[in-house]
């Protein structure tokens, strides 16, 4: 039942906010709904550890441990983003007139519903619809600032991802075609996995490529990544954290769900294609990241890089690599939230997007400087953070399975990205300070930052038992 509540609570919150009349506080409602979702998600995640799968509506809505992991990540980042929005959007409203707070929070809640729905839906056609809705419901959040740049970014975002979605739709219909020829079971992830060994390999292959390209456009895989830095740099910071940290991950989850279909079939080596696309994304993004002039753009390129790393880890195919991929998903989602929240408060204090003209933040605004540095170290994969641990386990698994070239290239790209991010952020944080605007950072923004910083550090030094179980079960679900 709680699975249905998770979907209904933000939906009701959004409807309440769209209702005419303004008696209730939009911020308060959003905060309460995302807190409820967080609590229910934690409970769901704990239950999936013992009971393999929770089924709410058979054949349509269910949640296993992989789904629960994604659900939990969306809920945590969503909760932090709701807190961050409170101070951030109010602060923007002080300087710019005509900011529409209530539609913002209504869309925020609807966007949350669509992202929560992806891991909860088990019917594959409905998953496609949920993925499409994540785009459509976030378009006006991306164009929220209504500047020409924001509108341009929103247009590119909607056109490219909808094109991708149409291609993925044909892929999903093909999967149904292949499955209905051999099995009468429900069209769910589980039903597909059971039927896949009997399905025609050519249909399976073609469907996989359509879905990889279609959903890959939304994840930001390299030939189709062009919209991503635009949209992820123009949206308001709390939305950036959601777009970069979890929306991409949620779609990647849908691609990863296809991986078990290829065990025991004569279809082509899907792992190899994931590795190729993953390495391409990681490499290109690592070089684009060095030359970025806008720090939010730089963090957006880092998202493309991390999506590539996760794909490579899935493609390597051993349990250790899958475990690393799961930890990377969690570490990246949370660390990217730190980065964009820190970028948000930096934008508030400096009113400047240019890396070159910001210097000495640690003196003028120690809070911004500190969190920006923590975010950069966290996302680049410096030792005490979760991403370090996950990248290390991916390297180990890659070497153990004898894929030296893949592991070597991945290591080189990760080091380039590491140097790139730290060099750029170093430039902003240290050095002779440039004059900045005097503004106070809202308390809620600080609170949101603390909420995401703590788990990133915690996961880097010690993974608590239940979280470890969840990661382990999720990694197993990708295997055979």
């Amino acid at each position, binding site marked *: 039942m709680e699975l249905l509540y998770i979907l209904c609570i933000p939906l009701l919150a959004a409807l309440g906010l769209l209702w005419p009349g303004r008696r209730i506080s939009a911020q308060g409602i959003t905060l309460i709904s995302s807190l409820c979702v967080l609590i229910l998600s934690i409970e769901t995640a704990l239950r999936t550890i013992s009971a393999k799968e929770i089924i709410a509506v058979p054949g349509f809505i269910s949640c296993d441990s992989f789904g629960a992991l994604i659900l939990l990540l969306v809920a945590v980042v969503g909760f932090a983003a709701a807190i961050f929005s409170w101070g951030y959007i109010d602060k923007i409203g002080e300087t710019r007139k005509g900011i529409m707070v209530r539609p913002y929070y209504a869309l925020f809640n609807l966007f949350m519903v669509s992202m929560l729905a992806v891991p909860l839906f088990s019917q594959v056609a409905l998953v496609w619809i949920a993925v499409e809705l994540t785009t459509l419901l976030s378009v006006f959040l991306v164009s929220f600032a209504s500047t020409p740049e924001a509108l341009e970014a929103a247009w590119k975002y909607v056109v490219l991802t909808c094109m991708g979605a149409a291609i993925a739709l044909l892929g999903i219909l093909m999967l149904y075609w292949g499955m209905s*020829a051999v099995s009468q079971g429900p069209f769910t992830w589980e039903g597909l996995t059971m039927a896949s060994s009997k399905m025609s390999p050519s249909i399976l292959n073609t469907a996989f490529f359509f879905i990889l390209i279609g959903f890959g456009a939304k994840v930001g895989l390299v030939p189709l990544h062009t919209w991503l830095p635009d949209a992820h740099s123009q949206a308001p910071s709390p939305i950036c954290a959601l777009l970069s940290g979890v929306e991409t991950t949620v779609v990647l989850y849908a691609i990863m769900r296809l991986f078990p279909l290829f065990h025991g079939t004569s279809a082509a080596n899907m792992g190899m294609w994931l590795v190729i696309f993953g390495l391409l994304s990681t490499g290109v993004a690592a070089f684009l990241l060095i030359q970025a002039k806008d720090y939010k753009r730089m963090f957006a390129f880092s998202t493309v890089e991390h999506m590539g790393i996760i794909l490579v880890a899935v493609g390597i195919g051993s349990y250790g690599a899958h475990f690393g991929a799961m930890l990377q998903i969690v570490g990246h989602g949370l660390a990217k939230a730190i980065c964009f929240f820190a970028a948000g408060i930096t934008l508030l204090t400096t009113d400047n997007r240019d890396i070159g003209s910001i210097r000495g933040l640690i003196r003028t605004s120690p809070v911004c400087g500190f969190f920006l540095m923590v975010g950069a170290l966290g996302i680049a994969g410096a030792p005490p953070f979760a991403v370090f641990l996950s990248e290390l386990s991916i390297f180990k698994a890659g070497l153990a399975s004898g894929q030296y070239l893949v592991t070597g290239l991945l290591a080189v790209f990760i080091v380039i990205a590491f140097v790139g991010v730290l060099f750029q952020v170093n430039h902003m944080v240290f050095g002779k300070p440039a004059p900045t605007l005097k503004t106070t950072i809202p308390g809620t923004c600080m609170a949101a930052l603390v909420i995401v910083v703590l788990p990133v550090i915690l996961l880097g030094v010690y993974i608590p038992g239940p979280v470890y179980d969840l990661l382990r079960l999720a990694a197993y679900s990708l295997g055979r």
Partner: protein
Amino acid sequence: MFDTTMITTSLVKLNALAGGLFLLTAFALVATRQVLACLRIYIGQSVLLAFSAVFLGALHGSVHLFLVAGITLAIKSILIPRLLRRTVGQDIYARREISQILNVPASLLIAVAIAFAAYAAATPLLAVSADPNESINLPIGMAGLFLGAYTICVRREAIPQLIGILAMENGAFFAGVSIAPGLPLIAELAAAFDVLIIALVMGLLTRKIQEAMGTTAVGEMTSLREE
């Protein structure tokens, strides 16, 4: 007995006719130079999609496909045009030519190549099926999908790009009515609803762009790029 085979063959032929015309509309979308004509072609294409669903429904005796046809007609040929008229009316009815990146003959040549590529991609998949309708709907649907994508790439205006996306979805569904006729009705309904939201969101965004920048030539917006 004779009658039923004749009905079956004529239904297959009618479906093939709908398929041929569907492909023609996909080409027409590439070549048309006026916004209003683009929208009309899209409406025609949706009607052909509905026809194909009706023919296949009659062939398989499936009420489900008749419902799909009804939903398609209601949403794609009635609701979406009305919605676009309300959100971006003046942009559609302004009688003007829209620019393309390539000229029309070159564009059509590339479109023909794309259609052949779609046939080549679909042929190995059809080896496993014996249904004649699948060998019509799948390649034509795939060609519709690719030609829609191509239309988006060569257009610089917002509304033709939006229609390109809707045409891509039409292509996917044209293949779908034949290869996935048993998809749960809830999924079909949600997908149709989803297409409506695409039209609404992109229509409203176009209007915002028009208000902020005084133009809907989205291809000219290039302030965000790598130096």
